[in-house]
């Protein structure tokens, strides 16, 4: 089963475009691309879900129902976070970003 990634954005958000670009660059890795599917979520449309996940600002990246990044992460950090959450990856390697 694919690892689900949700990128929470809002129209007019100054840095959300950068977050999308970072996510696309992280998924340029063929192994990740094959294992990860992602969608862009408009916070306005899913406000309750965003609050439930603990999102306090955009952009925010949720990996498998876990808020992992708020803001624009480095490509390498995002790759590591994704790799750590792939099925079969050791839970001990997980690191929560901010």
């Amino acid at each position, binding site marked *: 089963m694919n690892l689900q990634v949700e990128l929470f954005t*809002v*129209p*007019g*958000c*100054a*840095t959300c475009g950068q977050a999308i670009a970072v996510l696309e660059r992280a998924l340029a890795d063929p192994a990740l691309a094959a294992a990860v599917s992602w969608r862009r979520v408009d*916070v*306005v449309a899913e*406000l309750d879900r*965003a*609050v439930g996940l*603990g*999102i*306090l*600002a*955009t952009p925010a990246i949720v990996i498998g129902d876990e808020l992992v990044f708020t803001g624009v992460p480095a490509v390498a950090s995002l790759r590591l976070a994704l790799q750590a959450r792939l099925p079969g990856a050791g839970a001990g390697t997980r690191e929560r970003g901010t």
Partner: protein
Amino acid sequence: MSSTASGSRSGQRLYRIGEVARRTGFSVDTLRYYERIGLLRPVNRAQSGVRLYGEAELSRLRFIQRAKAMHFSLDEIGRLLEMREDPQHARDEVRELTRRKLAEVEASLTALASLRDELTLLVNLCHGSEGGCPIIRDLDGEG
């Protein structure tokens, strides 16, 4: 004449009813009423007959204020004050009420935390956006 009495009880400062009303936000009539129905113990009086309130009464009034903010009834507040006064010897019924009210307060805190988070998100979205506040515009559009 100062609104603070010159008298003291065991060295503590005592306050006239007007000063207590100013400090707590309760009206003078409400303070008298609370004494009449037993929420406040009969307060000391100066030789002139003026009511004098100590820190214990102020603390009790602050508790009443917080409980009223939670929409507890005066009857419930009275029983909670009983618990507050002597928790070791409170009746089972009062202990149970206290537990129920604690659960209500915790539920309110959870709801408030969720509201706080939602408002924080809205504020941050507006702050971080270009050209104004898209969230507020969109929400307005729903009406």
